[in-house]
């Protein structure tokens, strides 16, 4: 094939082709897991229509003027926060979370839309000349921008999505040039929360270590004390948040420790997912031939467990192909974050990477039995209109940035 260098200069096929490949694999897997399934009839047709719509929007976004994102960042963020509040009041409850908003005949998840709002607005805030991330007050403002949607989403409650927002916020702050002390100030509450999972003793030991590190930085006493208090608070807030988790979500975390302790309860999905993937072998059982998939051993496989379909029916080769397509996508996006001329665009790209990478890590991780079963879809592959539209649109944003990479904004 003759490469049109002129076209490649405007449109990064190394991003677009992996995207196309992942979307097509997703459609195959959705078809395989839903055809002849009365409880998921028309899912493939719907996903196909969503895909077409998403690609139309993809090209619309791709051709938008470069300054569009800067202009729309603030309104989109504000609008998305309003929608997040709205969903708490008038939302539809699905799987124990009030996360769906019905507008006319279509339903969508405001939390998906809010991802775009957060990435754009945080990029806008962090890239603004006025804001120095190494100023503690500025850092707190940046954290606050992420904190608003995180709290609203926890209230739904949708812990999986909340985790994604946390990661996006942290990675973008990290990317914006924070120094080691600032980074420590942001990250240490996370460490404290993680330690609190293992009980009060570990939590106390961790707090003590954090205190030692804070002292060694020899910064302003008030500042250090504030950070330490935040750490303590984070641990307790998490305990409260854990209680906010629905019993099924708590059980999922517990059953992750030992899925076989409750093979027919919350560990069931994890076990069946592993069996599906493991039984696929090198080449898989063949399209529409996977007995785990075709005999519906994994409930709602077309959403969070779509990777099992690939693993079972296309084997190691198919699974590896998915991983490689994602890796290419990530590497090209990281590359883009480096070559783009302005900080705003760079931050947007990093926000997109952290969003997709978080979904990717948690989703594949739970399919492989490495991470707990947290309900996060696999970008581009899982069934679901909102998620597909938002993810494809974000890649369109990245490609728009690629198109305009030589012009500083």
């Amino acid at each position, binding site marked *: 094939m003759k490469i049109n260098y002129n076209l490649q200069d405007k449109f990064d096929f190394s991003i677009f082709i992996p995207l196309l490949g992942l979307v097509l694999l997703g459609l195959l897997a959705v078809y395989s897991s839903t055809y002849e399934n009365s409880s998921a009839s028309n899912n493939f047709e719907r996903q196909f229509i969503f895909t077409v719509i998403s690609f139309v929007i993809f090209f619309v976004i791709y051709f938008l003027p470069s300054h569009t994102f800067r202009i729309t960042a603030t309104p989109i963020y504000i609008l998305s926060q309003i929608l997040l509040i709205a969903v708490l009041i008038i939302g539809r409850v699905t799987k124990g979370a009030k996360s769906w908003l019905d507008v006319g005949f279509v339903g969508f998840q405001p939390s998906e839309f809010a991802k775009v709002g957060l990435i754009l607005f945080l990029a806008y805030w962090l890239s603004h000349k006025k804001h120095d991330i190494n100023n503690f007050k500025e850092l707190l403002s940046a954290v606050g921008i992420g904190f608003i949607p995180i709290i609203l989403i926890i209230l739904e409650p949708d812990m999986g999505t909340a985790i994604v927002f946390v990661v996006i916020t942290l*990675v973008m702050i*990290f*990317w*914006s*040039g*924070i*120094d080691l002390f600032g980074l420590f100030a942001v990250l240490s509450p996370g460490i404290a929360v993680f330690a609190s999972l293992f009980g009060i003793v570990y939590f106390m030991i961790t707090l003590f270590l954090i205190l030692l590190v804070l002292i060694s930085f020899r910064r302003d006493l008030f500042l250090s004390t504030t950070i330490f208090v935040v750490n303590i608070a984070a641990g307790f807030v998490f305990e409260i948040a854990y209680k906010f988790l629905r019993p099924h979500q708590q059980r999922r975390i517990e059953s992750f420790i030992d899925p076989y302790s409750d093979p027919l309860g919350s560990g069931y999905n994890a076990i*069946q997912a*592993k*069996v*599906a*993937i*493991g*039984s*696929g*072998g*090198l080449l898989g059982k063949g399209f529409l031939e996977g*007995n*785990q998939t075709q*005999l*519906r*051993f994994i409930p709602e496989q077309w959403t969070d467990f779509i990777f099992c379909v690939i*693993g079972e029916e296309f*084997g*190691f080769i198919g*699974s*590896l192909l998915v*991983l490689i397509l*994602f*890796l290419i996508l*990530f*590497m090209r996006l*990281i590359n883009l*974050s*480096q070559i*783009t*001329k*302005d*900080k705003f665009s*760079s931050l947007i790209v*990093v926000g997109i*990477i952290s969003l997709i*990478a978080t979904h990717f*890590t948690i989703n*594949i*991780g739970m399919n*492989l039995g*490495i991470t707990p079963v947290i309900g996060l879809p696999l970008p581009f592959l899982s069934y679901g209109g909102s998620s597909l539209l938002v993810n494809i649109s974000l890649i369109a944003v990245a490609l728009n940035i690629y198109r305009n990479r030589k012009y*500083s904004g």
Partner: protein
Amino acid sequence: MTDEYFGSYIRKDIILYSLIVLFGLFTFRLFKMQILDNPIYKEKSEENSIKAVTVDAPRGVLYDRNFKYLVSNKPSYSLELIPENFSFANIGFIEYGISLDSGFVSNALANQKNIPAHIPRKIIENLSTPSIAWIEENKRNIPGIYLTVDLQRDYSFGIRGSHIFGYIKEIDSRRFKEMKDEYDLGDFIGYSGIEKTYEKYLRGEKGFEFFVVDAQQHKKGRYENGTNDIKPVKGNDLVLTIDKEVQKKAEELFRDKSGALVAIEPSTGEVLALVSAPDYDLGQLSSVTSNKVWNELSTDGNKPLFNRATMSSNPPGSPFKIITAIAALEEGIIDPSFTYVCQGGYQFGDRFFKCTHVHGKMNLIQAIEHSCNTYFYQLILKIGLEKWVKVAKEFGFGEKTKIDISEESNGLLPDADYFDRTYGKGKWTSGYLISLAIGQGDIISTPLQLAKYTCLLANMGRSYQPHIVKGYIDHENSYVPLSFPEIKADISENTLKVVREGMRRVVNGEGTATNIKMKEFEISGKTGTAQNPHGEDHAIFIAFAPYDNPKIAVSVIVENVGFGSTHAAPVAKEIIKTYLLKNVPDENLASLK
């Protein structure tokens, strides 16, 4: 990026390498699961989705010695119902259609409610033909119901054979615990008789049909089109030694009686007929009402479940005089011409032992012929216990015959040890022996032991261990005979000739059973009466025929009727007649003489 803020390249590398490490971790994990551990997961996945449904093997049928059916299998239809597909509005219609009590279907469903709704429930078994027809007609209009067929024992061949065949039942928890590897709950297993002893031959091997099922156990089709299915192997058919006509006759003769009969072919030990009365209907035991039937049978005062032929404990009575006679002859204590004078009894110490008549002067053969007690009272005192016991042992008294059904008792042959144990050392005298001489007192035997004894007398001391099964039909459809050990009574021919002559005269001379004398052939026998402390005495008769070339040996006990020749001997005669004159054209009857 133009902004040269703090270590921007380091930050890029942190993100990039984190993702590469993640990629490596996932790839390694995939490799481990899909390549290295693939066999484990593959097996789990197949276990997940393949369900084996057992197919019961038809139980082997039972033939008589002439390959006539004794017990076979018949289809039994049951109504099953799948709640998931069933409309409960139809319950009344079904109950009306197959004449069930109102509420029957709901009750049956309530008893099986903790099962997923797509698993079929058995509503009623053993449907009548009109019910089957009604269901066949209406099942198209009532979704969720259908008929299933199981095989059930068919006992409709004209004989009952309760104590020969024994019954089969669903395995109980105790047996299941012992034989977990071989049986599943709900399997039928032989509980008594031939069904129990030959369970391993009869049961066959279960088959399996493999179905692909989904997570809710819905059947999605045959696994690999049934190519892996394992066909059930039918159990071996057994060929019994029983003669159907003789058995049928024997059952008829005992219809209104209580007692037992055992008929054996002396040269082979093959049991031709075995009856214990009252008996029970095996067909009833295998039906749905079996629990009720079972309770009735087990609490019945007449003990229909008890196998009198192999287990009843009565003194053998006068047939045992022959043992006394043999002991005297074998030990050279007397010769056949030795006489005693019977004056109606025998005074021993302060006790008078009665005889039935005043027989006068009698030699040994006459004493057997007339069943003179006085003769044998005196004779045993000459013999002594030890020698007498030795002879009785030769004929197998006091021990099991090892017949091939497990319900059997030892009887009791009292020896010096027994008397020491029972009455105390030195506290018993030879007076205790006197009753033994005529088969009364402490001695106990079963009708089967008496039949075996008769076989040995008939066949000059040689026979085979009594048995009910001759052989089986193997899976190539050929007959495989089973062998049984030879048994022997080490008694001289001369001695046997003398006592056989006595037995011949019992029927054909002037003896106690001349009422059953036949013109076609000579029956030899010995009457007896077992004293019954609980009521009327039991009538006993042992016989073999024809005298010259015995083909059948019979022992009969008719309970609570009195003297042997009146009640037991005619029964024996009918059996002998049925067996020997069967299929014999009238013109050839003479040759039997």
